[in-house]
């Protein structure tokens, strides 16, 4: 009873009232920190930060000391896991790339259901210093390839098999003057003979010759095979028109054609072994 009448009790009540008041004020502030508290926090925050940082370091040191062995083991296991994941990732990337390339070849088959094609072959090497970029593939007679079969990439006609081994073949590209292909312009069906030319082969192009003098052919038009001679299937993309000029004779025009496939960087090609209208060997 004496305490209830003492100053201490009054101070206690005042304090309680103050804090209740503060509580109510804080409630009415709706989440905002009340200024004295905020000021206090501002003043103490550097100290808190320093103290927290020291405490963290100490804890970290102690933790290292206590759990060094388990961390070491964990680290080693994680490294192994990372290596495994890296290997899996690179395998996955390679498989993904391979799949994309194979899908492109499946696309050819879907577009031209009359084609009989081999599975895609890898380009194993280019003929050294060849102006026409002829190359070797890892497929031969044992894989169903025959001499003079057309060779294609997913983008367009590449060339023809001119040397055949049991498991390798040499492909002569459309840049070579040795090849002559009946071709036409996709939009106008204007016909010409596609052949290689030494001068154009230096720039990675071939020549569509015997076009009419007043040809309406324009740049970037798509050139397709006609399939007339029975050596190449009809309607397959060869390349795009890059330039049109008059022949030396002045009687016909010709177009410089950029092959649809980059013949200098081929990695995979397929061989078309049969198609509608294919000429017999004897023919």
């Amino acid at each position: 009873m004496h305490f209830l009448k003492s100053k201490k009790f009054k101070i206690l009540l005042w304090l309680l009232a103050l804090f209740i008041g503060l509580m109510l004020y804080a409630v009415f502030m709706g989440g905002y920190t009340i200024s004295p508290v905020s000021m206090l926090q501002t003043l103490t925050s550097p100290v808190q930060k320093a103290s927290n940082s020291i405490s963290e370091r100490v804890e970290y040191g102690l933790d290292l000391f206590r759990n060094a062995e388990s961390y070491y083991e964990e680290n080693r296991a994680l490294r192994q896991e990372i290596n495994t994941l890296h290997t899996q990732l690179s395998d996955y990337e390679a498989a993904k790339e391979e799949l994309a390339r194979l899908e492109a070849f499946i696309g050819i088959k879907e577009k031209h259901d009359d084609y009989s094609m081999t599975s895609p072959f890898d380009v194993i090497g280019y003929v050294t210093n060849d102006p026409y970029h002829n190359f070797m593939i890892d497929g031969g007679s044992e894989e169903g390839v025959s001499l003079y079969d057309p060779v294609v990439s997913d983008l367009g006609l590449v060339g023809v098999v001119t040397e055949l081994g049991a498991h390798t073949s040499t492909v002569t590209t459309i840049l070579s003057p040795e090849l002559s292909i009946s071709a036409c312009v996709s939009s106008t069906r204007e016909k010409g003979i596609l052949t290689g030319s030494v001068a154009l082969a230096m720039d990675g192009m071939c020549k569509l010759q015997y076009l009419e003098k007043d040809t309406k052919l324009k740049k970037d038009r798509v050139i397709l095979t006609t399939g007339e001679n029975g050596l190449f299937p009809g309607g397959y993309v060869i390349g795009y028109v890059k330039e049109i000029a008059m022949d030396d004779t002045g009687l016909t025009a010709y177009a410089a054609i950029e092959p649809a496939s980059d013949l200098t960087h081929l990695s995979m090609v397929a061989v078309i072994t049969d198609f509608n209208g294919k000429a017999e060997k004897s023919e």
Partner: protein
Amino acid sequence: MMKQNYQKIRKPHLQILQWMIYAILLVVCYIWQTSGSMIKPLLLIPIGLCIASHMGEIRAMLIGAACGVLLDLACGKLIGSNAICMILLCVGTSLLYHYLLKQKWFNMLWLTALCALIQGGMDYLFYYVIWEHENVSLIWENIILPSCWMTALSSVPIYFIIHGIAETCGSYREQKLEKASLSYPESKDVDV
């Protein structure tokens, strides 16, 4: 006396090692030549010539044949065409080094340049000119000549590599002794 010297320096295991290194070099150069479609030096020419310069005629012939066949395969030419050319060039080189030339890098440089031009010229004549394609000279200017110069220049490092191998493995010392034996009357006794 000379015969005994030969027997001393001939170490079969080193000879085997030497030929193994040469074989590896040839295969590596062949693979390198068929990769990529840019213009490249024909490394098999300086390799064949450098090896031949350290060998007798028979071995030079064999190495010429090996280099020539690989060159035919890499260049997609008729098998044997470059082989014949390389056999003759390698035997010629062996004889030149036997009787006339010293083992110096500049000798190999001009000899390789000459041989590359001969090989390139034959190639140009029989694979391009003969077919009378238009603008065929572009092939000579843009492909064959640059390749010849690159081949000639590549002979310098190849010379030092082959010379180093030959010196280490004995065939160079053997050749030197053989040369020296020619200037002595007792050389008739020497069986190489």
